């Protein structure tokens, strides 16, 4: 039935127009030229990166980065108070 095959639909209701879903702009991780890498030893779990990430790809608490969608803007590296995130050139 569901031609709008999505991994998220609210109350299973049918949306005639558009359905909120991750990746509406595609796999935006492919835009990246630099990849943020977290150093767990330096991370104090303050969640500042989660707060400032424009795309919400950093998980709260675990600071796990979703590389499928991370656009590599580098805001997290700049904002991290303990310099635990480093931007590395993408292979």
């Amino acid at each position: 039935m569901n031609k709008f095959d999505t991994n998220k639909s609210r109350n299973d209701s049918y949306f005639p127009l558009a359905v909120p879903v991750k990746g509406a702009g595609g796999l935006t991780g492919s835009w990246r030229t630099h990849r943020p890498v977290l150093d767990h030893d330096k991370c104090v779990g303050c969640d500042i990166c989660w707060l400032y990430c424009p795309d919400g790809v950093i998980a709260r608490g675990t600071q796990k980065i979703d590389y499928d969608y991370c656009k590599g803007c580098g805001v997290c590296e700049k904002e991290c108070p303990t310099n635990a995130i480093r931007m590395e050139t993408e292979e």
Partner: protein
Amino acid sequence: MAGIKEWSDYELSLPGNAACGGCPSTMALRTVGKALGENAVMIMTPSCAVASIGLLPKSAYDIPTLNICFAGAGVSASAVVNAFEIAHEKGRFEGEVPTVFNWTGDGGTYDIGLQSLSAAAERNDNILHFCYNNEAYSNTGIQRSGATMQFAQTTTTPGGKPNPKKNLAQIMLEHRVPYVATASIADLQDLYRKVEKAKAIQGFKYIEIHAPCFTAWKFAAADTVEIARLAVKSGAWLLWEANEDVITFQGATKQIAEGKKEPEALEEYLSAQGRFNKLLKSPDREENLAQLKADLARELALIKHRAAFKG
């Protein structure tokens, strides 16, 4: 004030949207979504925020979003909230009436959207209007807007904008609405608190968010928050809120307004961006900088006088 650890996990702007990496609009929208919750309806005029939705049948925003014509943010939100309130009164749906809010750029607020916004404010309709102010029409190729700073280069003012910007937050304040605030992506906790406060107020609410756009202002995407911070520290952007005509200042603006701190050098803020290159290299540099500083000092003096004024 709730610390960020107590904020909701709700994401209004989903990962993989079509905004640029480092976009201040989606950054601010995430915080706004956490403060407003899921029970909300968003209205957008043409802007980058609309372009960020992505392609049908997918949407990057988790709540019902209406894309309406450029000039109609105020009137559309008024209509939606009135319909909700009437339907609720007639018992057509259970629960709370959703928060209806506009998410517009400076074009949809300062220039093209101004008349319907002004009318909605004058009627004191129960809406929350956000302006994410990136000081140009960034979506269509960085043309000048009423919010562009004087001497900033845009594609329509390649030699630098000759006129100073409008002071729209104070214009909205003079509509005698219950809540007007300015915020910045430099301080998302402050933004969260302002949105939470505005949500609880009945009537017209206006919140303007300073949102440095790295493609329009010509700086590195990673510096987005840092530039916003410099704007506040140098007095190029003022953080204040007016709740029932009681004006208070926040952050660095508070220290500057109380005279505890001098604003940091404006040159540092300007030279961090590419759009002031011609100003900084021009032979009239000192004269123009002095004028810019005088304008900013005037803006601060005006809002300080307004704060002291009891009508």
